[in-house]
């Protein structure tokens, strides 16, 4: 057999072995590698490369090294899941860099960070002013996580006291023109309903790229043909506007009526409708 055929076979075998080993290592994404992961991966990579190029005189030695470097990390991972002490050694603990808005210089030294490094890490999080930071911590992976001071945090519906409608997860009922029966059933709907809804907006099922149903049973679709404009469902907005209109009508009737009882009835109706509109506003206006 010529030399290159042997190399080919060896490399193919090692390639398959590497695929298997990577599976064995588990499912951590490359962006969250700890230093220990990093070392392991490099060692395994180098061993496989030297083996497949036959740089090691005795192939068995190489395979043994490979076995040690895959089995040990796998073992350490298993142990680290079970025991916190092992975890702290292998994965490091997180290091607090800024606490109560004050930079901890000794901790910075411990993780070998210069002030420039810290500033740059903060800038990556869109923070240009140290003063905005309440707390910052370096994760075991080397990323810096930051908690902003209360006043500098982005506003949420809760901090502004704004009521929000509860919304369940929308279901994707059509993908690439294919109807997802499972999702439809989960919403308590069927194909017949979907066809009717599509007919209402005048769209052929084959033309639908993505179709989603929200918690109120409204269908939102995106078409393959982007030249066709699909009207967005307006039922919710329409219901809200109609409520408001009816409320102001009631007020007008109350003003126009002379009979005291009737006047009271219309005024009361207006009041009820106003309450209804206010309560439903977050749900209907999403």
């Amino acid at each position: 057999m010529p030399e290159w055929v042997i190399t080919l076979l060896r490399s193919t075998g090692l390639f398959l072995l590497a695929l298997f080993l990577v599976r064995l290592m588990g499912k951590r994404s490359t962006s969250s590698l700890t230093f220990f992961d990093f070392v392991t991966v490099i060692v395994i990579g180098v061993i496989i490369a030297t083996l497949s190029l036959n740089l090691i005189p005795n192939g068995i030695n190489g395979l043994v090294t490979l076995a040690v470097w895959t089995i040990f990390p796998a073992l350490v991972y298993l142990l680290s899941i079970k025991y916190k002490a092992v975890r702290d050694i292998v994965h490091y603990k997180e290091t607090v860099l800024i606490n109560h808005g004050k930079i901890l210089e000794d901790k910075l030294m411990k993780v070998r960070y210069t002030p420039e490094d810290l500033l740059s890490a903060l800038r990556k999080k869109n923070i240009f002013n140290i003063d905005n930071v309440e707390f910052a911590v370096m994760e075991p992976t080397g990323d810096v996580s930051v908690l902003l001071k209360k006043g500098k945090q982005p506003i949420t519906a809760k901090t502004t006291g704004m009521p929000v409608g509860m919304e369940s997860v929308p279901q994707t009922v059509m993908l690439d023109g294919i109807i997802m029966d499972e999702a439809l059933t989960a919403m308590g709907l069927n194909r017949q309903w979907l066809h009717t809804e599509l007919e209402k907006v005048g769209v052929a099922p084959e033309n639908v790229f993505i179709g989603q149903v929200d918690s109120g049973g409204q269908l939102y679709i995106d078409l393959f043909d982007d030249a066709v404009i699909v009207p967005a469902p307006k039922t919710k907005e329409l219901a809200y506007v109609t409520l408001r209109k009816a409320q102001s009508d009631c007020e007008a009737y109350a003003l126009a009526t002379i009979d005291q009882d009737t006047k009271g009835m219309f005024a009361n109706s207006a009041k009820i409708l106003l309450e209804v509109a206010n309560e439903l506003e977050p749900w209907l206006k999403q």
Partner: protein
Amino acid sequence: MTVASEVKQTLASLKGVASTLETFALHEENEESNELLTRNTQRVKEVIDYFEKRLATMEFEEPEYKGF
């Protein structure tokens, strides 16, 4: 437009809203939202009742405006 026909129009749109809300309540699985929708549908229906009673009186007093 007469008062009666205006009231009838408002009544019709209220009935529309009530049934829309009912449809939403049927679809909604989140309990909190469902409760919100059902409760408010009831309130709209209450107003519809007032309107219907008022219309009945109107039609009794002025039979010439009976019907649509």
